[in-house]
């Protein structure tokens, strides 16, 4: 099996605070890999380095074998690395139709077209329609994102990431804050992600992690504590001590 996403000796400090310590992580092609860890373990910092929002102090990041450490955020997206955000990072003044349309246009390299009106390319439209219907957003596609129910916004968040046709998708707590009634849609959408997309899931919710992941890495204090198949990790006494103990009283 080939490696889809890899970090080698990743280091990041804010002042005296070391938030990522010598992190080496391998995510295999097609994997459902989960990155878990207690609050403050540095999960979000890792994501931000993977996507290019933050630059690591040292270490490399490789996407399908090629070094992307120095690439800007949007170039990584075009290379096939996409993410969702923990807290909705959508465009309040845009509709789902426009949001997905933008993502599809950008991926096709047509986002800079300044003379063509929106909606005039059938290949773009077909894909928008496909994504909107897959994520149950057709009925709300002309409403402003800011007015959508929270569950729909979470779906849109995942849909936007998928619209970029990623080969590696980083899911940052996809079900966080979603009311129980709308939760099923999110979990179904996550479960239905195409198998050829490699997924790195960052999650707090242990039910979701253990039902979804085939491999789990545990992050503590910015460093890798252990890694393995779900049942191995669940049995690991160290993990039980630092993580599951914490989750029990969370």
């Amino acid at each position, binding site marked *: 099996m080939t490696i889809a996403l890899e970090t080698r000796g990743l280091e990041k400090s804010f002042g005296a605070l070391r938030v990522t310590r010598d992190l080496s992580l391998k995510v295999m092609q097609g994997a459902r890999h989960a990155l878990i860890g207690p609050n403050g373990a540095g999960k979000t910092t890792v994501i931000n380095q993977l996507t290019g929002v933050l630059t690591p102090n040292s270490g490399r990041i490789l996407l399908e074998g090629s070094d992307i450490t120095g690439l800007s955020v949007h170039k990584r997206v075009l290379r096939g690395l996409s993410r969702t*955000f923990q807290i909705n990072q959508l465009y309040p003044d845009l509709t789902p139709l426009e949001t997905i349309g*933008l993502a599809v*246009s950008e991926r096709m390299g047509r*986002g800079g077209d300044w003379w063509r*009106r*929106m*909606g005039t390319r059938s290949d773009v*439209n077909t894909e928008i329609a496909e994504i909107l219907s897959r994520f149950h957003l057709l009925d709300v596609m002309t409403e402003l994102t800011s007015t959508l129910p929270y569950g729909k916004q979470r779906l849109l968040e995942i849909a936007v990431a998928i619209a970029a046709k990623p080969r590696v998708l980083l899911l940052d707590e996809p079900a966080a804050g979603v009311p129980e009634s709308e939760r099923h849609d999110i979990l179904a959408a996550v479960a239905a992600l195409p198998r050829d997309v490699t997924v790195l899931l960052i999650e707090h919710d242990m039910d979701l992690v253990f039902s979804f992941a085939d491999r789990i890495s545990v992050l503590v204090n910015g460093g890798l504590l252990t890694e393995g198949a779900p049942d191995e990790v669940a049995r690991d006494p160290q993990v039980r001590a630092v993580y599951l103990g914490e989750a029990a009283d969370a």
Partner: protein
Amino acid sequence: MTALSDVSTHAMASARWRVSEVAFWALALACAFLFPSRYLIMTDIVRLGLFALSLDLILGYAGIVSLGHAAFFGVGAYSAGLLALHGIINEPVIALVAAGLVAALLGFLTSFLVIRGVDLTRLMVTLGIALLLEALAERFSNITGGTDGLQGIEMQPILGLFTFDMFGKTGFFYSLIVLFILFLLARRVVHSPFGLSLRAIRNNPLRAAAIGVPVNRRLIAVYTLAAFYAGIAGALFTQTTALASLDVFSFERSADLMLVLVIGGTGYLYGGLIGAVVFKMLQELFQSITPQYWLFWIGLVLVVIVLVGRARIHRWVLFVPNLIIRQFAGRKAAVAVPESDAS
């Protein structure tokens, strides 16, 4: 597949011409025949509308707050003036485009300074560039005519056919046609994928990058385009008034421009045009009350607009037109004000 046809219909809906838009332009044209004695002030309004449209492209669509947009207006004005004065390009339309391109070049070069940093840095850099140009124009008074401005500009007939007359009739129609053409271009641009990506950037730059939008490249492009528009507005100023003096760069000009756009509302293209009409009418009114101190009233308008809230004011202003349009066209609010805070 109905989903597909739905998607294409709705995707194209925003770019469709509305009744109210056609009415707006018909009214603008009608003014030319209704008020033949007021060509000069109407030309002023058209020019200001174009200038405000330019600011709307970067402020309303891309969220860049600029305190020095007069820089491009001034460069356009002086370029057009110098081209005409020294007989380099005599035909006004070609000179107009040339002046716009000079401003666009400056916009392109300075855009690299503007895309860096937070709001405050942008404010300072845009303001600094305008002041710098003003200082330069003052320093090289042998070229710019210093505080007296360029003297003795004589405009040749447009396309060799239409002579500028003393009542400003030619100037007005010329300006209105230029505005309409540039408006069509802007309308096309904001309804394109490019325009959509700008709105995404204004909403959330980080997220825009995360779906693959090259944020900096888009901002550079729109800043350059806006500079072109402002340069054209400046060139129109020189061509229709045969004047270009240092105050084209002044801070008051940039500040007034923001007021124009704020009165009309940002982020829907017509804001600048409506704002220009209202602003000029206010200016006329205040100047007739207190010719010397109208700055006070302009300041008061700004303060009141902000305190009451821009969005709320526009809802009030558009209440009546929307009511009428709804009666006649039987459609939801036709003139919408998009929420557009550049924070």
